[in-house]
């Protein structure tokens, strides 16, 4: 996992918009998760949402990603409501949920191909290289059902290498990864923000080594 990223990432993001939440409140089943929350993710930010189970981390992540419209307040991308510029926003951010959307009968390569189909500029070679980088070389043609949970997670995470988006929104990406995988992913996060990208992440994993890291604590409402 020491190989470098195929494309030089510093040249990747010429422009970068801010993602921001304005006075966002959300309740689930009569329980207030958060109220009047303000949050902005700027160029070079690595923001980790922390808090106990049920604090609303995933809910906040999803509504920032535009998957959930059931809330009060506003989420903006480039100072525009994300629902109004959703097409554009969707191309600029990568969302990987804790469900990996891997189809088990397909090979890692086929899965990856589907993932990047919204970005026609991604080349086939990049996919092979990305799979090699996540140590799945030689598994390109093996159906994913024969891979371990950790390997399947790596297939999903290989998207980080090939999708040319400045903003990453990741929900518990460290799940099922081994030590080497964790180190690799931490390295990727650090590199991404260093090169001018930004990351919004939920994780119970401590990300202490990355200087750009900011933690936001949820679950203060009882």
């Amino acid at each position, binding site marked *: 996992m020491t190989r470098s990223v195929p494309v030089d990432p510093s040249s990747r993001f010429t422009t970068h918009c801010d993602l921001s939440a304005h006075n966002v409140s959300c309740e689930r089943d009569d329980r207030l998760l958060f109220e009047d929350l303000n949050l902005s993710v700027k160029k070079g930010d690595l923001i980790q949402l922390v808090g106990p189970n049920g604090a609303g981390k*995933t809910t906040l992540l999803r509504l920032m990603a535009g998957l959930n419209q059931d809330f009060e307040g506003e989420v903006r991308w480039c100072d525009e409501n994300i629902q109004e510029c959703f097409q554009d926003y969707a191309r600029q951010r990568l969302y990987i949920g804790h469900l990996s*959307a891997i189809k088990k009968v397909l090979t890692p390569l086929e899965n990856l191909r589907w993932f990047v189909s919204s970005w026609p500029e991604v080349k086939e070679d990049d996919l092979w290289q990305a799979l090699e980088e996540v140590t799945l070389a030689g598994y390109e043609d093996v159906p994913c059902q024969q891979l371990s949970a950790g390997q399947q997670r790596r297939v999903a995470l290989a998207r980080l290498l090939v999708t040319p988006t400045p903003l990453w929104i990741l929900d518990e990406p460290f799940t099922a990864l081994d030590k080497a995988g964790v180190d690799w992913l931490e390295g990727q996060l650090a590199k991404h923000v260093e090169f001018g990208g930004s990351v919004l992440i939920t994780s119970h994993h401590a990300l202490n080594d990355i200087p750009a890291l900011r933690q936001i604590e949820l679950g203060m409402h009882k």
Partner: protein
Amino acid sequence: MSLVVATIKRDLVIAARNPGEWLNPLMFFLMVLALFPLAVDPDPKFLAKIAAGVVWVAALLATLLSLDALFKADVEDGTLEQWLASGESLYAMALGKVFVHWCISGLPLTLVAPLLALMMNLPEEAYSALFFSLLLGTPILSLLGAVGAALTAGVRSGGLLLSLVILPLYIPILIFGASAVYHAGIEMEYAGQLGFLASFLCIAMTLTPFAVAGALKLNLSR
């Protein structure tokens, strides 16, 4: 649009690797047909009289059976989340999914039904009517069924519920489809019935994707 095309391709590949997906409804169709002579009367004259209705009922049930799986896997493995995240129109995605479903259920049924109708002693004159009524009718079954499949995708053991929800909506198709075949069998004009099926198909094709898209959004797990 590219994600829709990629999804259609991907689902077709999955169906090709899981032949059960399209073979099981066909076998079910065959078995249901075999029940009628056994349960009611094997007399060829009697069979010829009920053949039109029986073949249509069996085709309808076989379609219904295959619908349960239409969105279930996509909801459970996170594929649905990725559709929503992609910013592609869910309307187009719904049409794409229905197209795939028709390719692996309605189309094989349409091709096989005339062969199996031999066993029911269907009058010779009715074969083209059977083929064309199924060709026009099975896509409507898939379209309407997709609404039910999307509504029940997140429900445990949703299969039975799906039937409850969708069967009443299938009645008009059953009436006109079976009637076209029956009338052809007694050498009467059946173009009118096919015309009705064609217009239902147009209505269903324009309206049901809205309902499917709306229903799919309900399945985002929290």
